[in-house]
Protein backbone atom coordinates (compact mmCIF):
# COMPACT_ATOMS: atom_id res chain seq x y z
CA UNK A 1 0.00 0.00 0.00
CA UNK A 2 1.09 3.55 -0.73
CA UNK A 3 0.93 5.87 2.21
CA UNK A 4 -0.42 8.55 -0.09
CA UNK A 5 -3.67 6.57 -0.19
CA UNK A 6 -4.00 7.16 3.55
CA UNK A 7 -3.29 10.88 3.27
CA UNK A 8 -5.92 11.02 0.54
CA UNK A 9 -8.42 9.45 2.92
CA UNK A 10 -7.64 12.17 5.43
CA UNK A 11 -5.89 9.88 7.89
CA UNK A 12 -3.29 11.25 10.31
CA UNK A 13 -0.39 9.05 9.25
CA UNK A 14 2.13 7.89 11.85
CA UNK A 15 5.48 6.51 10.80
CA UNK A 16 8.58 5.56 12.73
CA UNK A 17 12.17 5.17 11.72
CA UNK A 18 14.45 2.18 12.21
CA UNK A 19 18.16 2.03 11.48
CA UNK A 20 19.67 -1.30 10.37
CA UNK A 21 22.64 -2.60 12.38
CA UNK A 22 26.30 -2.72 11.47
CA UNK A 23 26.34 -6.41 10.75
CA UNK A 24 24.23 -8.95 8.93
CA UNK A 25 21.85 -9.97 11.70
CA UNK A 26 18.67 -7.98 11.58
CA UNK A 27 16.56 -10.41 13.60
CA UNK A 28 16.62 -8.18 16.71
CA UNK A 29 15.48 -5.21 14.60
CA UNK A 30 12.60 -7.24 13.21
CA UNK A 31 11.61 -8.43 16.70
CA UNK A 32 11.64 -4.88 18.06
CA UNK A 33 9.68 -3.60 15.09
CA UNK A 34 7.00 -6.25 15.57
CA UNK A 35 6.85 -5.58 19.28
CA UNK A 36 6.80 -1.79 19.38
CA UNK A 37 5.70 -0.57 15.99
CA UNK A 38 2.34 -2.27 15.67
CA UNK A 39 0.69 1.07 16.40
CA UNK A 40 2.38 2.93 13.58
CA UNK A 41 1.32 2.79 9.97
CA UNK A 42 4.67 2.79 8.20
CA UNK A 43 8.30 2.15 9.04
CA UNK A 44 11.12 4.16 7.46
CA UNK A 45 14.37 2.30 7.00
CA UNK A 46 17.43 4.56 6.93
CA UNK A 47 20.11 4.27 4.26
CA UNK A 48 23.43 4.12 6.14
CA UNK A 49 22.31 7.14 8.13
CA UNK A 50 24.85 9.88 8.88
CA UNK A 51 27.13 8.16 6.36
CA UNK A 52 27.82 5.32 8.80
CA UNK A 53 28.00 2.04 6.87
CA UNK A 54 25.24 -0.37 7.84
CA UNK A 55 23.09 -3.26 6.65
CA UNK A 56 21.09 -2.27 3.57
CA UNK A 57 17.84 -0.38 3.57
CA UNK A 58 16.27 -2.33 0.71
CA UNK A 59 16.89 -5.75 2.27
CA UNK A 60 15.53 -4.51 5.62
CA UNK A 61 12.44 -3.16 3.88
CA UNK A 62 11.82 -6.53 2.28
CA UNK A 63 12.26 -8.34 5.61
CA UNK A 64 9.87 -5.92 7.35
CA UNK A 65 7.34 -6.39 4.60
CA UNK A 66 7.53 -10.15 5.04
CA UNK A 67 6.69 -9.57 8.70
CA UNK A 68 3.57 -7.70 7.70
CA UNK A 69 4.82 -4.15 8.27
CA UNK A 70 4.64 -1.33 5.74
CA UNK A 71 8.17 -0.18 4.90
CA UNK A 72 9.36 3.15 3.50
CA UNK A 73 12.58 2.70 1.56
CA UNK A 74 14.95 5.62 2.24
CA UNK A 75 17.39 6.25 -0.59
CA UNK A 76 20.22 8.75 -0.59
CA UNK A 77 22.33 9.97 -3.51
CA UNK A 78 25.51 9.68 -1.48
CA UNK A 79 26.70 6.23 -2.53
CA UNK A 80 25.15 5.43 -5.89
CA UNK A 81 25.13 7.01 -9.30
CA UNK A 82 22.00 7.27 -11.41
CA UNK A 83 22.39 3.75 -12.79
CA UNK A 84 22.59 2.08 -9.38
CA UNK A 85 19.80 4.23 -7.95
CA UNK A 86 17.37 3.35 -10.71
CA UNK A 87 18.35 -0.28 -10.51
CA UNK A 88 17.63 -0.42 -6.76
CA UNK A 89 14.34 1.38 -7.24
CA UNK A 90 13.23 -1.21 -9.79
CA UNK A 91 14.28 -3.96 -7.37
CA UNK A 92 12.14 -2.35 -4.68
CA UNK A 93 9.15 -2.41 -7.00
CA UNK A 94 9.58 -6.14 -7.50
CA UNK A 95 9.54 -6.68 -3.74
CA UNK A 96 6.29 -4.75 -3.53
CA UNK A 97 7.87 -1.83 -1.73
CA UNK A 98 5.79 1.12 -2.82
CA UNK A 99 6.91 3.89 -0.49
CA UNK A 100 10.11 5.79 -1.04
CA UNK A 101 11.81 8.62 0.78
CA UNK A 102 14.25 10.32 -1.57
CA UNK A 103 17.14 12.22 -0.05
CA UNK A 104 20.38 13.88 -1.03
CA UNK A 105 22.15 12.32 1.93
CA UNK A 106 24.90 13.48 4.25
CA UNK A 107 28.40 14.02 2.96
CA UNK A 108 30.69 10.99 3.31
CA UNK A 109 32.98 13.07 5.52
CA UNK A 110 30.33 13.02 8.24
CA UNK A 111 30.47 9.27 8.79
CA UNK A 112 32.75 6.37 9.60
CA UNK A 113 34.31 6.11 6.14
CA UNK A 114 35.44 9.70 5.59
CA UNK A 115 37.80 8.59 2.83
CA UNK A 116 34.92 7.36 0.68
CA UNK A 117 34.05 9.07 -2.58
CA UNK A 118 30.93 11.22 -2.20
CA UNK A 119 28.83 10.44 -5.26
CA UNK A 120 25.97 12.97 -5.55
CA UNK A 121 25.58 12.22 -9.24
CA UNK A 122 21.93 13.11 -8.61
CA UNK A 123 20.41 14.98 -5.69
CA UNK A 124 17.03 14.77 -3.94
CA UNK A 125 15.29 16.85 -6.60
CA UNK A 126 16.70 15.06 -9.61
CA UNK A 127 16.14 11.71 -7.89
CA UNK A 128 12.44 12.51 -7.45
CA UNK A 129 12.37 13.50 -11.11
CA UNK A 130 14.06 10.20 -12.00
CA UNK A 131 11.48 8.11 -10.12
CA UNK A 132 8.72 10.03 -11.84
CA UNK A 133 10.32 9.27 -15.16
CA UNK A 134 10.58 5.55 -14.30
CA UNK A 135 6.88 5.64 -13.44
CA UNK A 136 6.18 6.85 -16.96
CA UNK A 137 7.98 3.80 -18.33
CA UNK A 138 11.21 5.52 -19.34
CA UNK A 139 14.55 5.60 -17.54
CA UNK A 140 16.69 8.69 -17.04
CA UNK A 141 18.67 7.86 -20.15
CA UNK A 142 15.46 7.99 -22.17
CA UNK A 143 15.25 4.23 -22.68
CA UNK A 144 11.96 2.38 -22.42
CA UNK A 145 11.36 -0.01 -19.54
CA UNK A 146 10.10 -3.48 -20.31
CA UNK A 147 6.58 -4.22 -19.07
CA UNK A 148 4.31 -2.33 -16.71
CA UNK A 149 6.23 0.57 -15.09
CA UNK A 150 6.43 0.78 -11.27
CA UNK A 151 4.36 3.18 -9.16
CA UNK A 152 5.48 4.69 -5.87
CA UNK A 153 4.54 7.17 -3.19
CA UNK A 154 7.46 9.56 -3.55
CA UNK A 155 8.44 11.10 -0.24
CA UNK A 156 10.90 13.87 0.47
CA UNK A 157 12.21 15.75 3.49
CA UNK A 158 12.26 19.37 4.56
CA UNK A 159 13.69 21.19 7.54
CA UNK A 160 11.09 23.61 8.98
CA UNK A 161 13.15 24.98 11.88
CA UNK A 162 16.28 25.47 9.80
CA UNK A 163 17.96 28.85 10.10
CA UNK A 164 17.78 28.91 6.30
CA UNK A 165 14.04 28.24 6.24
CA UNK A 166 13.43 30.33 3.12
CA UNK A 167 16.03 28.40 1.16
CA UNK A 168 14.40 25.21 2.50
CA UNK A 169 10.97 26.33 1.28
CA UNK A 170 12.44 27.11 -2.13
CA UNK A 171 13.90 23.62 -2.23
CA UNK A 172 10.59 22.13 -1.11
CA UNK A 173 8.88 23.88 -3.99
CA UNK A 174 11.39 22.35 -6.40
CA UNK A 175 10.74 18.92 -4.92
CA UNK A 176 7.00 19.37 -5.39
CA UNK A 177 7.54 20.52 -8.96
CA UNK A 178 9.72 17.45 -9.57
CA UNK A 179 6.94 15.15 -8.32
CA UNK A 180 7.19 14.71 -4.53
CA UNK A 181 3.93 13.33 -3.12
CA UNK A 182 4.49 13.82 0.62
CA UNK A 183 7.00 15.24 3.09
CA UNK A 184 8.56 14.24 6.38
CA UNK A 185 10.32 16.91 8.40
CA UNK A 186 13.48 17.18 10.42
CA UNK A 187 12.83 16.94 14.17
CA UNK A 188 10.80 19.85 15.51
CA UNK A 189 11.16 21.27 19.03
CA UNK A 190 9.79 24.70 18.26
CA UNK A 191 6.09 24.34 17.40
CA UNK A 192 5.74 28.09 16.67
CA UNK A 193 8.37 27.83 13.96
CA UNK A 194 6.74 24.71 12.54
CA UNK A 195 3.32 26.33 12.45
CA UNK A 196 4.74 29.39 10.72
CA UNK A 197 6.49 27.13 8.24
CA UNK A 198 3.27 25.24 7.53
CA UNK A 199 1.45 28.50 6.81
CA UNK A 200 3.84 28.90 3.89
CA UNK A 201 4.15 25.23 2.93
CA UNK A 202 0.38 24.84 2.74
CA UNK A 203 0.36 26.39 -0.73
CA UNK A 204 2.12 23.32 -2.18
CA UNK A 205 -0.85 21.14 -1.28
CA UNK A 206 1.24 18.14 -0.22
CA UNK A 207 0.83 16.22 3.06
CA UNK A 208 3.50 16.93 5.66
CA UNK A 209 4.43 14.67 8.57
CA UNK A 210 5.86 16.42 11.60
CA UNK A 211 9.24 14.94 12.51
CA UNK A 212 9.99 14.25 16.18
CA UNK A 213 12.93 12.88 18.14
CA UNK A 214 12.42 11.87 21.78
CA UNK A 215 15.06 13.76 23.80
CA UNK A 216 16.92 11.24 25.94
CA UNK A 217 18.95 13.59 28.08
CA UNK A 218 20.46 17.04 28.35
CA UNK A 219 23.68 16.03 26.62
CA UNK A 220 21.81 14.82 23.57
CA UNK A 221 19.95 18.14 23.31
CA UNK A 222 23.14 20.14 23.65
CA UNK A 223 24.78 17.93 21.04
CA UNK A 224 21.91 18.43 18.59
CA UNK A 225 21.92 22.16 19.21
CA UNK A 226 25.52 22.52 18.27
CA UNK A 227 25.85 19.82 15.62
CA UNK A 228 22.61 18.81 13.98
CA UNK A 229 21.29 20.98 11.17
CA UNK A 230 17.77 22.29 11.50
CA UNK A 231 17.33 21.27 15.14
CA UNK A 232 17.14 23.62 18.06
CA UNK A 233 15.97 22.47 21.47
CA UNK A 234 14.87 25.55 23.45
CA UNK A 235 16.48 26.18 26.83
CA UNK A 236 13.15 25.69 28.72
CA UNK A 237 12.94 22.14 27.41
CA UNK A 238 16.49 21.44 28.48
CA UNK A 239 15.59 22.80 31.94
CA UNK A 240 12.59 20.48 32.01
CA UNK A 241 14.87 17.52 31.35
CA UNK A 242 17.23 18.67 34.09
CA UNK A 243 14.52 18.84 36.76
CA UNK A 244 13.80 15.19 37.46
CA UNK A 245 16.82 13.12 36.49
CA UNK A 246 15.10 9.78 37.13
CA UNK A 247 12.06 10.65 35.03
CA UNK A 248 14.32 11.84 32.24
CA UNK A 249 16.38 8.68 32.35
CA UNK A 250 13.23 6.59 32.20
CA UNK A 251 12.13 8.52 29.14
CA UNK A 252 9.07 9.95 30.88
CA UNK A 253 10.05 13.59 30.45
CA UNK A 254 11.15 13.16 26.83
CA UNK A 255 7.91 11.43 25.92
CA UNK A 256 5.91 14.16 27.66
CA UNK A 257 7.74 16.89 25.74
CA UNK A 258 7.25 15.21 22.38
CA UNK A 259 3.60 14.36 23.05
CA UNK A 260 3.03 18.04 23.79
CA UNK A 261 4.74 19.09 20.55
CA UNK A 262 2.63 16.62 18.55
CA UNK A 263 -0.60 17.87 20.12
CA UNK A 264 0.29 21.46 19.41
CA UNK A 265 1.26 20.84 15.78
CA UNK A 266 -1.36 18.26 14.88
CA UNK A 267 -3.96 20.71 13.55
CA UNK A 268 -1.41 22.04 11.08
CA UNK A 269 -0.04 18.82 9.58
CA UNK A 270 -1.10 15.48 8.14
CA UNK A 271 0.90 13.05 10.23
CA UNK A 272 3.87 12.48 12.45
CA UNK A 273 7.19 10.79 11.85
CA UNK A 274 8.95 9.45 14.95
CA UNK A 275 12.71 9.06 14.97
CA UNK A 276 13.22 7.09 18.18
CA UNK A 277 16.96 6.48 17.75
CA UNK A 278 17.02 3.28 19.76
CA UNK A 279 14.07 4.19 22.00
CA UNK A 280 11.54 2.31 19.89
CA UNK A 281 10.17 0.83 23.11
CA UNK A 282 8.88 4.29 24.08
CA UNK A 283 6.77 4.65 20.94
CA UNK A 284 3.56 2.94 22.14
CA UNK A 285 3.56 5.12 25.26
CA UNK A 286 4.21 8.22 23.20
CA UNK A 287 1.31 7.51 20.88
CA UNK A 288 -0.97 7.06 23.86
CA UNK A 289 0.19 10.27 25.52
CA UNK A 290 -0.20 12.21 22.28
CA UNK A 291 -3.71 10.84 21.89
CA UNK A 292 -3.10 9.16 18.55
Amino acid at each position, binding site marked *: MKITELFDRGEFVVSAEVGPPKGCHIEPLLEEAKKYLSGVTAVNVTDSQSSVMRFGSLATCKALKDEGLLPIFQITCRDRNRIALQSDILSAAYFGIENLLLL*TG*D*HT*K*MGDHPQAK*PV*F*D*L*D*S*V*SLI*HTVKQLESGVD*LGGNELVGEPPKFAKGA*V*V*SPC*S*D*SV*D*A*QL*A*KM*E*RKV*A*AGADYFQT*QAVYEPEKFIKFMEKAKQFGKPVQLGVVIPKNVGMCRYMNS*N*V*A*GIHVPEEMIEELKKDKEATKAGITGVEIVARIIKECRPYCQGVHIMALGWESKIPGLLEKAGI
Partner: protein
Amino acid sequence: MLITELKSRETTAPLLAGKKVFIINCHGCREVHFPEKEAAGYDAELSAAGQVTGILTTDYICNPENLKLRLEKYKSQIEAADVVLVRSCGVGVQTVSEYLEDKIVYAGCDTYPLPGHQGVTPQEYKCDQCGECYLNITGGICPITACSKSLVNGQCGGAKNGKCEVDSEMECGWERIYRRLAMLGRLDVLKCPVQIRNFATDDETRQPEESNL
Protein backbone atom coordinates in the same frame (compact mmCIF):
# COMPACT_ATOMS: atom_id res chain seq x y z
CA MET B 1 43.97 24.51 -20.19
CA LEU B 2 40.35 25.28 -20.67
CA ILE B 3 37.99 26.18 -23.41
CA THR B 4 34.99 28.47 -23.36
CA GLU B 5 32.12 27.94 -25.70
CA LEU B 6 29.24 30.34 -26.29
CA LYS B 7 25.98 29.27 -24.71
CA SER B 8 23.35 28.67 -27.37
CA ARG B 9 21.22 31.58 -28.56
CA GLU B 10 18.12 29.83 -27.27
CA THR B 11 19.65 29.92 -23.82
CA THR B 12 20.92 33.48 -23.86
CA ALA B 13 18.20 35.22 -25.86
CA PRO B 14 15.41 34.95 -23.24
CA LEU B 15 17.76 36.35 -20.59
CA LEU B 16 18.51 39.42 -22.66
CA ALA B 17 15.11 39.97 -24.32
CA GLY B 18 14.04 43.59 -23.98
CA LYS B 19 16.97 44.37 -21.70
CA LYS B 20 19.79 46.88 -21.96
CA VAL B 21 23.03 44.96 -21.90
CA PHE B 22 26.63 45.79 -21.02
CA ILE B 23 28.95 43.18 -22.48
CA ILE B 24 32.32 42.08 -21.16
CA ASN B 25 34.43 39.82 -23.34
CA CYS B 26 37.52 38.40 -21.72
CA HIS B 27 40.21 37.30 -24.10
CA GLY B 28 42.19 36.43 -21.05
CA CYS B 29 45.05 34.12 -20.83
CA ARG B 30 46.32 32.62 -24.02
CA GLU B 31 45.60 29.19 -22.67
CA VAL B 32 41.90 29.83 -23.00
CA HIS B 33 40.15 29.45 -26.27
CA PHE B 34 37.64 32.23 -26.79
CA PRO B 35 35.04 32.05 -29.58
CA GLU B 36 35.82 35.56 -30.87
CA LYS B 37 34.01 35.51 -34.19
CA GLU B 38 30.72 34.15 -32.92
CA ALA B 39 30.77 36.61 -30.05
CA ALA B 40 31.39 39.56 -32.35
CA GLY B 41 28.50 38.45 -34.56
CA TYR B 42 26.14 38.29 -31.62
CA ASP B 43 27.31 41.66 -30.30
CA ALA B 44 26.63 43.25 -33.68
CA GLU B 45 23.09 41.89 -33.62
CA LEU B 46 22.43 43.13 -30.12
CA SER B 47 23.89 46.53 -31.01
CA ALA B 48 21.69 46.77 -34.08
CA ALA B 49 18.69 46.10 -31.84
CA GLY B 50 19.77 49.06 -29.70
CA GLN B 51 20.24 46.89 -26.62
CA VAL B 52 23.92 47.45 -25.98
CA THR B 53 25.08 50.19 -23.61
CA GLY B 54 28.73 49.31 -24.01
CA ILE B 55 31.22 46.58 -24.79
CA LEU B 56 34.46 46.01 -22.95
CA THR B 57 36.88 43.59 -24.49
CA THR B 58 39.74 42.98 -22.16
CA ASP B 59 41.79 40.32 -20.41
CA TYR B 60 42.29 38.81 -16.98
CA ILE B 61 38.97 39.88 -15.50
CA CYS B 62 39.55 37.08 -13.02
CA ASN B 63 41.94 39.44 -11.26
CA PRO B 64 39.72 41.65 -9.09
CA GLU B 65 42.18 44.58 -9.01
CA ASN B 66 42.58 44.49 -12.75
CA LEU B 67 38.83 44.25 -13.24
CA LYS B 68 38.15 47.22 -10.99
CA LEU B 69 40.54 49.42 -12.94
CA ARG B 70 39.01 48.49 -16.26
CA LEU B 71 35.39 48.87 -15.18
CA GLU B 72 36.01 52.37 -13.70
CA LYS B 73 35.89 53.90 -17.18
CA TYR B 74 32.59 52.25 -18.03
CA LYS B 75 30.66 53.23 -14.94
CA SER B 76 27.88 55.11 -16.71
CA GLN B 77 27.44 52.47 -19.39
CA ILE B 78 27.16 49.78 -16.76
CA GLU B 79 24.70 51.85 -14.79
CA ALA B 80 22.57 52.30 -17.90
CA ALA B 81 22.38 48.54 -18.42
CA ASP B 82 19.80 46.20 -16.89
CA VAL B 83 22.10 43.21 -17.11
CA VAL B 84 25.77 42.50 -17.66
CA LEU B 85 26.70 39.67 -20.00
CA VAL B 86 30.13 38.19 -19.37
CA ARG B 87 31.87 35.96 -21.83
CA SER B 88 34.73 34.38 -19.98
CA CYS B 89 35.53 31.29 -18.00
CA GLY B 90 33.50 30.71 -14.84
CA VAL B 91 36.04 32.48 -12.67
CA GLY B 92 35.75 35.68 -14.67
CA VAL B 93 31.96 35.68 -14.42
CA GLN B 94 32.12 35.14 -10.67
CA THR B 95 34.61 37.96 -10.21
CA VAL B 96 32.40 40.39 -12.13
CA SER B 97 29.29 39.20 -10.37
CA GLU B 98 30.85 39.84 -6.97
CA TYR B 99 32.21 43.24 -7.95
CA LEU B 100 28.95 44.46 -9.53
CA GLU B 101 27.06 43.19 -6.54
CA ASP B 102 23.71 44.80 -7.30
CA LYS B 103 23.68 43.99 -11.03
CA ILE B 104 22.32 40.90 -12.68
CA VAL B 105 25.35 39.26 -14.23
CA TYR B 106 24.90 36.52 -16.81
CA ALA B 107 27.39 33.99 -18.06
CA GLY B 108 27.54 33.95 -21.83
CA CYS B 109 29.77 30.90 -22.02
CA ASP B 110 30.16 27.37 -20.79
CA THR B 111 33.59 26.36 -19.56
CA TYR B 112 35.11 22.99 -20.43
CA PRO B 113 38.41 21.57 -19.36
CA LEU B 114 41.12 20.68 -21.81
CA PRO B 115 44.01 18.51 -20.77
CA GLY B 116 47.13 20.50 -20.10
CA HIS B 117 48.25 23.42 -18.05
CA GLN B 118 45.92 26.12 -16.81
CA GLY B 119 47.17 29.65 -17.36
CA VAL B 120 46.29 31.82 -14.42
CA THR B 121 45.61 30.23 -11.09
CA PRO B 122 42.81 32.38 -9.76
CA GLN B 123 42.83 33.08 -6.06
CA GLU B 124 39.34 33.99 -5.00
CA TYR B 125 36.87 32.14 -7.14
CA LYS B 126 36.87 28.64 -8.33
CA CYS B 127 35.57 27.13 -11.52
CA ASP B 128 35.61 23.39 -12.03
CA GLN B 129 35.01 23.73 -15.75
CA CYS B 130 31.87 21.69 -15.42
CA GLY B 131 30.87 22.28 -19.03
CA GLU B 132 27.43 23.80 -18.48
CA CYS B 133 27.87 26.95 -16.52
CA TYR B 134 25.11 27.27 -13.90
CA LEU B 135 25.90 30.85 -12.87
CA ASN B 136 22.79 32.21 -14.61
CA ILE B 137 20.51 30.31 -12.27
CA THR B 138 22.61 30.72 -9.15
CA GLY B 139 23.09 34.46 -8.90
CA GLY B 140 26.62 34.28 -10.24
CA ILE B 141 27.88 32.01 -7.46
CA CYS B 142 29.28 28.69 -8.64
CA PRO B 143 27.30 25.80 -7.11
CA ILE B 144 29.89 23.28 -8.22
CA THR B 145 32.70 24.78 -6.15
CA ALA B 146 30.80 26.75 -3.47
CA CYS B 147 28.72 23.74 -2.36
CA SER B 148 30.51 20.75 -0.82
CA LYS B 149 28.23 18.34 -2.67
CA SER B 150 28.17 20.40 -5.88
CA LEU B 151 24.38 20.43 -5.71
CA VAL B 152 22.63 22.09 -8.63
CA ASN B 153 19.00 22.03 -7.45
CA GLY B 154 19.20 23.89 -4.15
CA GLN B 155 20.29 23.59 -0.56
CA CYS B 156 20.61 20.26 1.24
CA GLY B 157 19.37 19.90 4.79
CA GLY B 158 22.83 20.11 6.27
CA ALA B 159 23.45 23.83 6.72
CA LYS B 160 23.73 24.99 10.32
CA ASN B 161 23.98 28.68 11.23
CA GLY B 162 24.61 29.35 7.56
CA LYS B 163 27.65 27.07 7.55
CA CYS B 164 28.14 23.92 5.50
CA GLU B 165 27.67 20.53 7.18
CA VAL B 166 31.07 19.42 5.96
CA ASP B 167 33.07 22.39 7.20
CA SER B 168 31.89 24.71 9.94
CA GLU B 169 34.30 27.37 8.69
CA MET B 170 32.76 27.41 5.24
CA GLU B 171 29.62 29.35 4.40
CA CYS B 172 26.93 27.18 2.82
CA GLY B 173 27.12 27.90 -0.89
CA TRP B 174 23.38 27.60 -1.36
CA GLU B 175 22.73 29.96 1.50
CA ARG B 176 24.90 32.48 -0.35
CA ILE B 177 23.11 31.77 -3.63
CA TYR B 178 19.71 32.23 -2.01
CA ARG B 179 20.75 35.52 -0.37
CA ARG B 180 22.22 36.81 -3.60
CA LEU B 181 19.14 35.98 -5.64
CA ALA B 182 16.92 37.54 -2.97
CA MET B 183 19.01 40.70 -3.09
CA LEU B 184 18.75 40.85 -6.87
CA GLY B 185 15.01 40.20 -6.70
CA ARG B 186 15.55 37.11 -8.79
CA LEU B 187 14.28 34.27 -6.58
CA ASP B 188 12.10 33.28 -9.52
CA VAL B 189 15.08 31.59 -11.19
CA LEU B 190 14.89 28.91 -8.50
CA LYS B 191 11.72 27.72 -10.20
CA CYS B 192 13.77 26.59 -13.19
CA PRO B 193 13.47 23.00 -14.46
CA VAL B 194 15.20 20.13 -12.65
CA GLN B 195 18.92 20.26 -13.39
CA ILE B 196 20.74 17.03 -14.07
CA ARG B 197 24.48 17.19 -14.44
CA ASN B 198 26.18 15.88 -17.51
CA PHE B 199 29.41 14.15 -16.59
CA ALA B 200 30.24 13.01 -20.09
CA THR B 201 33.48 14.55 -21.27
CA ASP B 202 33.52 13.65 -24.94
CA ASP B 203 31.67 15.69 -27.53
CA GLU B 204 29.55 12.82 -28.75
CA THR B 205 27.84 12.04 -25.48
CA ARG B 206 27.54 15.68 -24.52
CA GLN B 207 24.35 16.92 -26.01
CA PRO B 208 24.40 20.69 -25.71
CA GLU B 209 20.78 20.98 -26.78
CA GLU B 210 19.80 19.37 -23.48
CA SER B 211 21.25 22.25 -21.55
CA ASN B 212 18.70 24.91 -20.71
CA LEU B 213 20.73 27.19 -18.50
